[in-house]
């Protein structure tokens, strides 16, 4: 039960980060979309706080994950039947990382530009990372919206890949779930 990654397997830290963040990000995507539907009022204001808190947590965790993967490189995707599938898998993972950083940054910028404090978990006030300006807020909110849509598209690809590997029975899913090397 190693914590660190090895060339053929995911250690506990990477797996915990993957699944923890997967839950966090999928949950926050749902929450973000739900926010656009709920009637505003004092009783629903806390949902915005929750969305920002979970989103910021995901941002912190992705930075931890990037650092960790520098220290302990994860295994490369298992060889797929066709080389483009390998390239696609790697490109998908790279895009997921880029979006995991960009999505919350855009959300944080939009929140900052509104001039309203971003308060996490009801206590921690984040510094502003954008000037208070309607134009900034509109742009950042638009970016946040389209980046989350891009994230959903790339995630669909990610899950399609996972499904294809599951169907092929190459052990990819199992090694992310249990840490056991494929075929081991």
């Amino acid at each position, binding site marked *: 039960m190693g914590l660190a990654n090895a060339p053929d397997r995911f250690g506990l830290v990477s797996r915990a980060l993957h699944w923890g963040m997967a839950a966090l990000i999928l949950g926050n995507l749902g929450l973000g979309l739900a926010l656009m539907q709920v*009637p*505003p*009022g*004092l*009783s*629903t*204001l806390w949902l915005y706080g929750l969305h920002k808190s979970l989103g910021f947590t995901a941002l912190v965790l992705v930075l931890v994950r990037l650092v960790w993967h520098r220290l302990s490189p994860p295994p490369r995707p298992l060889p797929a039947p066709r080389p483009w599938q390998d390239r696609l898998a790697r490109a998908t993972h790279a895009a997921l990382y880029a979006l995991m950083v960009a999505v919350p940054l855009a959300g944080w910028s939009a929140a900052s530009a*509104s*001039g*309203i*404090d971003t308060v996490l978990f009801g206590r921690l006030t984040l510094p502003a990372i954008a000037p*208070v*300006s*309607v134009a900034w807020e509109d742009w950042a909110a638009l970016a946040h919206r389209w980046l989350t849509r891009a994230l959903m598209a790339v995630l669909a690809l990610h899950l399609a890949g996972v499904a294809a590997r599951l169907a092929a029975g190459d052990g990819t899913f199992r090694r992310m779930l249990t840490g056991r090397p494929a075929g081991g």
Partner: protein
Amino acid sequence: MCIAATEASRKREGSAGAGASRGDPGQARGDHREMKGSARVSAYLEGVSVSGRLRIGVMLHLRLSLLAVLALLALAAPVLAAPVAYRLDADRSTVGFETDFGEDRITGRFPVAEADLRIDIQRPGNSRIRVAIDAAGAEASFPFAAQALKGPRVLDARRFPQIIFESTRVLGNPAAGGRIEGLVTIRGITRPVTLEAQLYRQDGTLPEDLSRLSVVLRGAVSRAAFGADGWADMVGDEVRVVILARIERAE
């Protein structure tokens, strides 16, 4: 007779929060309005109890008493022939506001930055007032609301730190319930507004004493009319305002 009426009113102050003269029918009407009015004023103030600076309890104890208009006019006529300058007691004055937020309500208040008050009790039409409200100092019933209010989508208080009200016409007699027409400037946009006005003698003053008065002004503005329409999908357009100004004759 009218003096007696005010004396009676002063005796009643202890029990009726907004003790007032019941001397004549006109006053009785004013009295009714005052009851409602001060209940609303206190509601506004309670909404902003987050601000420790304002000692609301104290304010509520400083009960207002309605001026016995006719008595005052009779007494004051020789003395007050022209508008008299009054000084605002800013610490004991407040501009309360209220607007809808979904099913809920946002309340809050602004400090008064400066006030130029010239009041002619005898001929209210000669009175002129100009009040500057400190937009940047707004407080609201919850912190997000105050920040949203001061932010660029609503008051843009950094660029427009003050809201200005300037009277153009005083109608009726504020002591009995009058109206003040004027111009209000919000976000650099000036629009006409009409405020209901009530003038009261401050608690603990003698009926003929005009040196310290309380003015209650009530009105409403549309945010959209001033381009202060941020979060229009969440926050109501109409902002209802109650101003309580305690003033002292400047001498």
